[in-house]
């Protein structure tokens, strides 16, 4: 498998977690989520493709979406974490830490001489 494909799979696999983490501190609208992700990661390749993922997470009941008018010249759609989203996020964080820890240990072991 070429390195780019592996990197793409890694990026895609972590995007749901990154989005849930972004709204964990409070509700954000689409562009604010994208800007937050861009500030901390390089997970966003094409801005327009984040919205369908937000839609899926909303359909899965992990996020709640609400249109807010009057805050800007145009309406904004805010996303907030639901209770079930918070639970899922806690599990995902736990899984991620455990997984990253195992890989880190494996990398350390591979660098030690036999």
């Amino acid at each position, binding site marked *: 498998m070429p390195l780019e494909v592996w990197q793409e799979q890694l990026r*895609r696999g972590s995007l749901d977690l990154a989005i849930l983490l972004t709204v964990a501190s409070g509700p954000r*609208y689409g562009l604010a989520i994208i800007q937050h992700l861009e500030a901390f990661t390089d997970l966003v390749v094409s*801005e327009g493709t984040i919205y369908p993922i937000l839609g899926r997470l909303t359909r899965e009941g992990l996020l709640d979406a609400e249109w807010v008018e009057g805050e800007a010249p145009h309406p904004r759609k805010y996303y907030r974490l639901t209770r079930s989203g918070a639970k899922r996020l806690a599990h995902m964080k736990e899984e991620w830490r455990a997984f990253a820890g195992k890989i880190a240990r494996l990398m350390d072991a591979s660098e030690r001489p036999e």
Partner: protein
Amino acid sequence: MQLSETGESRVQGYLFVLERSLNTFLPRDVVRDAVREIESHLRERVLAATAAPNEREAVERILAELGPPLRVAQAYSAERTIEEAVATGRLVPIVRAVGHLASTTVIGFFAALGLLVGYLTAFAFVAIAVLKPIFPANVGIRYVGGFPVALGAQFPLPPGEHMGGGYAIIPFALACGLGIFVGTHRGARAFLSWWRNRTVS
């Protein structure tokens, strides 16, 4: 940045193409909401942008960062239609997802063509198994001049030809039909899964 009439029509053009693309596979209310959200994104970006070096370049940059409308539509397709097809594995969502890809992409068209051939072949084998007990003399292995030339049904059977294979053709055709159906179905699911992984973000 305040948009001029030209800039505004460029944005409206983008939203029009996006809406048309989404309309082919999403319910109307979902399309309306998706287009409204993308428009909100564009307005937000335009508001924060400076018209330097000129408005046209600024608008094009914003639209490029968002991605071409067909790509955005494909991402929606991957998240909804294709997601449902891959997750459930049911025939109708799979046919709908492949149909959508066939109408929007070249790879999708050829994949749909291949899958159509697979499903039709499976159907033909099952039809042979079903028709054999009803028309025993017209369904089976067709012999012309004593040589087997085809497997299927012939109405009416021309003089000098006969159908062979007997009733053993029924389990054979059923096994082939079901085997090809399962193979095609798995192929369709694998293709959609590959496509989803290729297009999502």
